[in-house]
């Protein structure tokens, strides 16, 4: 079963001399229950692929299929019950005037859940924050604490496909270990599928089965993590990444 199928995806911004072809002819598939990594240069189009899937990048061509169905614009509410995204920037992704409790409570409410109170408590425990953070506002949280709130919010609708954009790059290593273990457990318990962007090969190596390497808008190589570990990367940029990471 294929959970995510991306074919000949092009994404661009702007026009004329300001046109940026951020993603050029990307092809990849992620099977149900798999975890797929996107690595590559800063500015190479990784976040843009995730944004195109969730309809945050308006200009695109190609095919995006989620759970066997091509996506439509605008995405229906049911889409976001299936697909959730954790953004790269934990500062921009939380509303400054909503407390943690409001953020999680409203998301749960929107997706028709009951027993919201108990679920908020459970979500906070799941991401290792606990109750004392429940009524805080974003400005009262450190960078890592905000990212955990963002992860809790993404987990709230119990999605099938999670798009994770550098989910732990703002986190210290101990919280990173907790979050990666948590994500691994959740994947197993709920048979979740992950598409995960990271610039850290050790993180992708730990979390993913397959990965795509991007450079300048293009996927230059797709391979298994096992092959990467055996140093079987063929593209010079992948080799460069590999050598800088071991």
């Amino acid at each position: 079963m294929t959970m995510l199928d991306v074919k000949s995806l092009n994404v661009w911004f702007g026009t004329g001399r300001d046109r940026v072809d951020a993603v050029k002819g990307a092809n990849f598939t992620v099977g149900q229950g798999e975890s797929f990594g996107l690595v590559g240069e800063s500015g190479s189009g990784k976040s843009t692929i995730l944004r195109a899937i969730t309809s945050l990048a308006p200009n695109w061509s190609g095919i995006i299929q989620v759970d066997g169905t091509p996506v439509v614009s605008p995405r229906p509410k049911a889409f976001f019950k299936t697909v959730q995204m954790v953004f790269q920037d934990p500062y921009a992704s939380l509303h400054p005037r909503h407390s943690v409790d409001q953020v999680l409570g409203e998301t749960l409410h929107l997706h028709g859940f009951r027993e919201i109170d108990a679920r908020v408590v459970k979500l906070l425990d799941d991401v290792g924050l606990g109750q004392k953070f429940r009524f805080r506002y974003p400005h009262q949280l450190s960078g890592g604490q905000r990212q955990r709130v963002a992860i809790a919010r993404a987990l709230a609708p119990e999605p099938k496909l999670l798009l994770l954009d550098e989910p732990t790059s703002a986190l210290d290593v101990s919280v990173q270990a907790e979050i990666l273990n948590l994500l691994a457990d959740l994947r197993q318990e709920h048979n979740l599928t992950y598409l995960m962007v990271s610039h850290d090969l050790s993180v992708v190596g730990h979390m993913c089965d397959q990965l795509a390497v991007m450079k300048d808008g293009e996927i230059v190589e797709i391979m298994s993590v096992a092959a990467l570990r055996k140093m079987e990367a063929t593209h010079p940029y992948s080799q460069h990444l590999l050598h800088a990471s071991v």
Partner: protein
Amino acid sequence: MMEQLLDIENLWVKFPTRQGIFDAVRGVSFTLGRERLGIVGESGSGKSMTGRAILRLIRPPGIVEADYIKLEGTNLLDKTEKEMRAVRGQQISMVMQDPKFSLNPVMTIGNQIIEAYRLHSKASKSEAYAKSLEMLEAVSIRNPKRVMRAYPHEMSGGMGQRIMIAMMLIPNPKILIADEPTSALDVSVQRQVLDIMDRLVNERGMGLIFISHDLNLVADFCDRVLIMYAGRIVEVCQADRLHEAQHPYTRGLLNSLPRFDAPKPRLEVLQRDPAWSEAPSVSGRT
């Protein structure tokens, strides 16, 4: 003894909360010379608040207290807010952890860099433009002309970080406080950014406070490291000996790193000991 640029004694940062006063930084003391000083520690341990407190950038109702925060002998706590504004940027620059947040969202990147540059030099507009392009190239921005015309939201995560770094280097500060400056960068771009900072320390004698959660990076790049836990310094060590650190907390941090060459099914997580936060803060003076 190394010439000290910064000398901090007994620094506290306090926030009144519903549950009473929360001490984000608890009596920290350290010095900074013309060196690369790393601050590592888990999320919420007070790294950013320590950096911001030096510049007196803690938003009310937060409070900064210290016996003194001396910049080349002058106590920053005695300065008026107006005098502090001259210190910020001119003498001490800070790259904030939230790069896009620190840029003006409705002004092009180019105008922001040019404005910052002309604030510090008498350059003409075209000189400033050329210099700005040069700075973007220095931080490995591709197509810098397009980026000059773009707005912050049109930048990728790592591009935002690099733009902030370029801007902070304009005034040629004595001290740069860089809060997670490379957390969104891939290894190749990261190396280039670190090289720039390295040159400033070695060639211009700048002092660098490098806040990061990347222990391998800090071990590799810095001279000295302060390890923070719950608002205090629990251990101080030479960066190249970080991997031999003794404190169980530091050991825990080191052990929780995933390793590409040594995969394991589960990562170790830190088992926190209440005694760590009780122990007095270790001095980071030299």
